[in-house]
């Protein structure tokens, strides 16, 4: 609450500093007998605002980040030695109770005297810290603004200052994006490492059996779970391949038609329609797959004397293929359009027909880009969950028969983490190991795609 207040006050103060800086620079220019300013008045304003804002916001963020641990150490140091001697978990529980009471989230029922006293202490400290925080932040803001305003001279290169600050701001934003990715990877990695302490890496990577369960009692029937991820990988690849078998020919050929043959009016209608296809939520595709496509495939298979599971890789793959058609089409269309017309003219001028030109000149020139697009589509197919959950079943069967039910990495992650879970059981932690593997598979695909796309840039011109 105080943080938000402090932030809003800070913003308001920034606006004020901007106008002060601007006005002051104009005044200085005037009093110095029309000495020309190095930069425009607004640059001086921006500079003053930035000086007011940046140091104080840094202080605000750091302070807010440290606040809870400051309060914690202060409160804990006031507790009795017996309590402090408790184990970390128990101390944490004890502290959580008094904190919740202090924040009026629970009543005093079940709390001991010491906790209530400590909670009182907590309230005092946090109130004084919040008060101090606002003071410090505002003082920093005022000091920054005053410093900047004092520095305003006609020779001050405010424009360059502002440009530099903008560059830094952009750098920090990109840095945040990188850090976030790194954070996600690391958090998955640490949990996965915990999993691999319980289940050997080799069992996970090369095991042919997936039945993730852990004994609650040691004498339980079927206690030994197995965590071989090969069936999941095969299932994932099977469904993705089925999907690509649908999406690549249809997507690529529609892209060729749209970019080479179609009239402008046909294009204007078709492209948006296909893009609507891309906007359909995957859960809708999921029940379309489960309720329409899967039974249809089963009946079709039965009429031909094949045994088809009511949930099959084929059904999921087909629908997933339809889902990524617009993706393949849109990327290929862009890339085919990027092939220079001069190449088409050269080929047509030699007496080649349209289809010869497309087959021998346009597609080879666009091929690396198209491959890149297909790989991006493939990594989408591999990451797709909803359709598979609904249409392909949950049984981790090691098979390459698309008529059987299979399961994928993403589906297993969902089933492992849905519902009440204990986060120290290998069964739950397996989800992180799967996530890590999935991350690496898609990363690999993306790297290959990026590499191919980069090569493509060097192809012509």
């Amino acid at each position, binding site marked *: 609450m105080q943080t938000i207040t402090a932030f809003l006050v800070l913003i308001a103060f920034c606006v004020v500093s901007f106008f002060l800086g601007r006005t002051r620079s104009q005044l200085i220019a005037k009093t110095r007998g029309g000495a020309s300013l190095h930069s425009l008045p607004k640059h001086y304003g921006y500079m003053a605002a930035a000086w007011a804002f940046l140091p104080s916001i840094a202080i605000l963020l750091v302070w807010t980040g440290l606040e809870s641990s400051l309060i914690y150490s202060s409160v804990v140091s006031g507790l009795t030695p017996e309590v402090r001697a408790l184990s970390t978990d128990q101390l944490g529980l004890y502290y959580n109770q008094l904190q919740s009471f202090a924040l009026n989230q629970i009543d005093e029922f079940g709390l001991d005297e010491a906790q209530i006293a400590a909670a009182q202490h907590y309230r005092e400290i946090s109130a004084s810290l919040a008060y101090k925080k606002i003071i410090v932040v505002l003082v920093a803001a005022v000091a920054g603004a005053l410093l900047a305003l004092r520095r305003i001279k006609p020779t001050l290169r405010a424009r360059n200052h502002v440009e530099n600050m903008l560059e830094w701001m952009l750098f920090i934003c990109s840095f945040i994006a990188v850090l976030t990715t790194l954070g996600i990877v690391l958090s998955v990695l640490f949990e996965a490492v915990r999993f691999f302490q319980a289940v050997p890496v080799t069992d996970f990577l090369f095991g042919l059996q997936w039945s993730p369960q852990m004994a609650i009692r040691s004498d339980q029937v079927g206690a030994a779970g197995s965590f071989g991820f090969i069936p999941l990988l095969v299932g994932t690849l099977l469904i993705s391949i089925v999907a690509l078998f649908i999406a690549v020919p249809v997507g690529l050929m529609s892209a060729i038609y749209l*970019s*080479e*043959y*179609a*009239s*402008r009016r046909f*294009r204007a209608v078709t492209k948006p329609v296909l893009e609507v296809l891309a906007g359909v939520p995957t859960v809708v595709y999921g029940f379309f797959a489960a309720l329409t496509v899967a039974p249809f495939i089963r009946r079709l298979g039965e009429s031909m004397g094949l045994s088809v599971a009511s949930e099959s890789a084929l059904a999921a793959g087909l629908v997933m293929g339809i889902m990524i058609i617009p993706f393949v089409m849109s990327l290929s269309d862009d890339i085919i359009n990027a092939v*220079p*017309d*001069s*190449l*088409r*003219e*050269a*080929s*047509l*001028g*030699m*007496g*080649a*027909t*349209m289809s*010869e030109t497309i087959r*021998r*000149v346009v597609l*080879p*020139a666009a091929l690396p880009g198209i491959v890149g697009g297909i790989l991006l589509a493939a990594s989408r197919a591999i990451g797709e969950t909803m359709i598979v959950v609904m249409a392909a079943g949950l049984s981790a069967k090691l098979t390459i028969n698309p008529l059987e039910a299979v399961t994928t990495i993403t589906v297993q992650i969902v089933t492992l983490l849905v519902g009440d879970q204990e986060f120290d059981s290998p069964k739950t932690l397996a989800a992180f190991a799967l996530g890590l593997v999935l991350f690496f598979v898609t990363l690999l695909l993306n790297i290959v795609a990026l590499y191919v796309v980069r090569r493509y840039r060097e*192809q*012509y*011109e």
Partner: protein
Amino acid sequence: MASRMENSERMGADKNVTNRTVTDAHSAGSGGSLESLHLNPDARGQETIGSPFVKRAKMSARDVNVFYGEKQAISNISLDIAQNEILAMIGPSGCGKSTFLRTLNRMNDIIPACRVEGKITLDGEDIYQKERDTVLLRARVGMVFQKPNPFPKSIYENVAYGPKIHGLAQNKATMDEIVESSLRRASLFDEVKDQLDKPGTGLSGGQQQRLCIARAIAVSPEIILMDEPCSALDPIATARIEELMNELKENYTIAIVTHSMQQAARVSQRTAYFHLGELIEVGETKEIFTLPQHQLTENYITGRFG
């Protein structure tokens, strides 16, 4: 023939724009005498001065009109191209010389908005007749474009492209022969003989353009159309291409569009001067450049505009 609508419309639009720009520039920027020339009824809709017709005509155009949509790009052009000659077409931008060149192998067909009227014959046969198709025509009438446009394939594949699509080589040895002799005729072979498998796009601009010429002559055309083939090249590369054209005219008939009057004077036997979609004057190159009959021709070749 279905084609790329967007692209083609853009190309059509480009022509319109250039046309308009030229007209504007003339009416606004140029001197009074020029303006009056434009408005002079004698300058428009008149008979071509000189001799557009020759005895041994390889290709002849009679009363050709080309329209991009509503806009008329060239009007009533009659012109012969003689066997084994180089015919240069000159004139200010947007005068229709490129459009005329492209009607000769029906490259304008790929522009849906484009309409061609009149009669164009190759060895006496009308190339716009319904039953004739563009595949064989373009094998006989090759084209070299303004900007070198080798395919992003190897040098060998670039030259072998035409023979492949026309099925000219039955085996690898014949193909090798065709590729080598085409590269030789384009006087490129010695420079690239050790790198036939390297991409054609890696060559220098002049080499690329000679590669495009080699690619065009690999299907043994009878006529080669060149649309400002040297406009993207430096003077040395230009000199080599001009030398090459001189050699090529022994075996081929060449029609070249150029913006360089010196180039037209150096390489061609006959020169045609186009202005705003009309053929103003045709004649022996020497005569055109020494004794132009029409005022517009004289103004153009003396550099008073263009």
